[in-house]
């Protein structure tokens, strides 16, 4: 910013650049005529500073106020005859006046006198492009990029030239290398998006626009995703293995969750049955002195298997309703819900059974070979539990009233199953009918094994095995049929 004039003392006040920012700010916002006005004000304070002149001329040109630009140019060329902008902005004015040839002449002189200025080359390219001589424009631009490899405008112009020639493929290529060099500049995305749109690739256009907002890794990360989504083969819930895995994991996790709630956590699994037994021992063994010798053993060998059945069935009967939130979010087979409840309740009974075994042993009924018969008995009980549990769970969503009947029904079955009394104490003609209740029969089996030390009635056991097996298959089929019905019923 050298001034040939002597009266420099005036320009001592503030630092010009900060004042100039005042005029440049509105220009950046696009209000060129306001910018021109501000430059005019600044010119009063800094009449010998070239920026106040050329800033104003530029603003006038951009605002389309050619007449004013010409007037200002007249004074400026007297004041700074050797300033490159005399030629460059002069050329701009000529271009605006639709005299490209005159502009080209001015620029030819500029290229000779001011070859070291970026603007010279950029404007030369612009001028050539405006005249439709794109090969010439490309040459000037190449020159600009070689001389100023880091200049953003030069590279931007390069891509824009391709767009002006409507060569969208080339434009996209050039924008891509532009983005590599200037990843932060929005033009690399937004103008490239325009090129993509023009070339008939709206998807790429959208990606580019989003990449401008979210960063350019959006453009590269996509390639990896292709591979990933093709390897997903997932219909696991429909296979038995997948179903089992889900039910098992869910039940185990539910148990873990349950124990997390309590301070004593897993200890409760043992404590609860122990307390339970203590209560019965106190009431029946000590207070009531009922049933005589061995009554507690008799009671517990019936009560504990019954508790397992009743807890499992009552918890599963409501499971589909309880699982509705999940059912409506993810497409898992509805049978998962009762099965998880059953498994969860059953796993909790394992320690109870162990305590029962210990108790029976301590009461003077040591384990012998007959205890092996427990395996089929427990298996049949498992199948009966699944059958009744899943059946009730399927009924409740359709007729919610059933859930009110479940506790009463279970209590009814409890009294009909001979937990507190032996089946032998009812009239003989009723005994056979009484034992047609599978639970009563199963309890009889447990007592035969534990107390009488004999094998249970395998024929009847086998019959119940077949019945419950068939029942389970039917239920499974019904669940398959109802799979898409449950979510609707639950929604209603």
């Amino acid at each position, binding site marked *: 910013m050298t001034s040939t004039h002597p009266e420099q003392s005036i320009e001592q006040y503030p630092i010009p650049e900060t004042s100039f920012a005042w005029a440049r700010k509105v220009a950046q916002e696009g209000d060129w005529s306001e910018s021109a006005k501000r430059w005019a004000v600044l010119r009063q304070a800094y009449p010998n500073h070239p920026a106040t002149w050329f800033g104003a001329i530029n603003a006038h040109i951009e605002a389309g106020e050619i007449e004013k630009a010409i007037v200002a140019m007249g004074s400026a060329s007297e004041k700074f005859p050797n300033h490159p902008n005399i030629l460059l902005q002069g050329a701009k004015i000529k271009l605006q006046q639709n005299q490209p040839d005159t502009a080209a002449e001015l620029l030819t002189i500029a290229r000779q006198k001011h070859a070291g200025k970026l603007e010279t080359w950029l404007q030369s390219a612009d001028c050539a492009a405006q005249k439709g001589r794109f090969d010439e424009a490309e040459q000037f631009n190449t020159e600009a990029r070689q001389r100023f490899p880091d200049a953003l405008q030069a590279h931007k112009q390069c891509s824009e030239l391709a767009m002006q020639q409507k060569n969208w493929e080339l434009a996209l290529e050039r924008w891509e290398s532009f983005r590599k060099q200037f990843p932060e500049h929005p033009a690399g995305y937004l103008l490239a998006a325009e090129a993509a749109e023009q070339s008939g690739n709206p998807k790429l256009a959208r990606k580019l626009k*989003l990449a401008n907002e979210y960063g350019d890794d959006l453009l590269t990360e996509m390639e990896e995703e292709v591979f990933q989504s093709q390897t997903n083969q997932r219909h696991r819930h429909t296979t038995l293995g997948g179903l089992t895995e889900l039910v098992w994991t869910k039940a185990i996790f539910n148990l873990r969750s349950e124990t997390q709630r309590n301070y004593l956590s897993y200890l409760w699994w043992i404590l609860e049955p122990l307390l339970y037994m203590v209560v019965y021992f106190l009431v029946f063994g000590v207070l009531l002195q009922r049933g005589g010798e061995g009554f507690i053993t008799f009671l517990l060998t019936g009560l504990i298997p019954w508790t397992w059945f009743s807890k499992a069935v009552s918890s599963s009967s409501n499971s589909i309703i309880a699982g509705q939130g*999940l059912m409506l979010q993810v497409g898992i087979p509805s049978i998962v819900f009762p099965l998880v409840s059953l498994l969860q309740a059953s796993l909790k009974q394992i320690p109870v059974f162990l305590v029962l075994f210990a108790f029976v042993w301590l009461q003077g009924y040591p384990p012998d070979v007959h205890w092996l018969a427990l395996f089929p008995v427990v298996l049949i009980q498992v199948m009966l539990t699944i059958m009744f549990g899943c059946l009730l769970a399927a009924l409740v969503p359709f007729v919610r009233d059933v859930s009110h009947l479940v506790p009463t029904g279970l209590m009814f079955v409890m009294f009909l199953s001979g937990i507190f009394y032996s089946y032998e104490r009812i009239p003989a003609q009723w005994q056979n009918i009484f034992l047609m209740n599978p639970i009563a029969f199963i309890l009889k089996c447990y007592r035969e094994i534990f107390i009488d030390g004999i094998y249970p009635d395998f024929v009847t056991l086998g019959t119940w095995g077949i019945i419950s097996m068939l029942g389970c298959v039917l239920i499974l089929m019904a669940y398959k049929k109802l799979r898409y019905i449950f979510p609707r019923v639950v929604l209603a």
Partner: protein
Amino acid sequence: MMSQQPIISLQDVGVSYKRAGSLFRKTQYYEALKSVTLDIYPGETLGILGRNGAGKSTLLKIISGIIKPDSGTVINNNASVALLALQAGFDQNLSGRDNTILSGMLQGYGRREVEAKLDEIHEFSELGDFFFEPVHTYSSGMRTRLGFSVSTVISPDVLLIDEVLSVGDRHFREKAEKAMIVKIQSNQTVLLVSHAHSQIRRLCDRAVVIEAGNTVASGTPAEVIQIYETLLDKGKTVA
């Protein structure tokens, strides 16, 4: 894109719900969807525009295979579909890790597959050591972060998104939004349901307008949004 086979195709799909009756009240039927026809092509992002109550959530349940239609056909060419369900099945007493496994399995993955992705999910969620603490110790922001991380790292063939979500604090929201955008713009097939047309315009290849249980328009986002807007205007004048 159009020359490809659609992975999911809905033809004239109708759904009516039963409003449960009782002894003293007659059962009523309510038509949530009347006739919806649309195709989802692999790799595209399809936007579904519709006002509240237009049947969008029922449509999502049909597409994700949770319910079957009463009329019309749904053809799914062996694609796994899942709703981006934040915190689906989260158990407050379980650790973030356990919930991740459970949530992944509920969305259709095998346990081992989820376990293989655990580190990635842990890292994405930025939960640090909290990942191994019970979820009830989390702030609500942390919870959504975990849910979001599971759903982003694990993804089905067709991902259904009910509104692009904003989750967690500002930093995570930006990250989540970006992850979602990357997912949407990738070759992941996405069905984006929204009533905000700006999102549809920004993100989708094609769009469909649902109104009162019918598909009333389909085409490029720009075309469809115009139709949607006239619909909205009509709605205003009627109301």
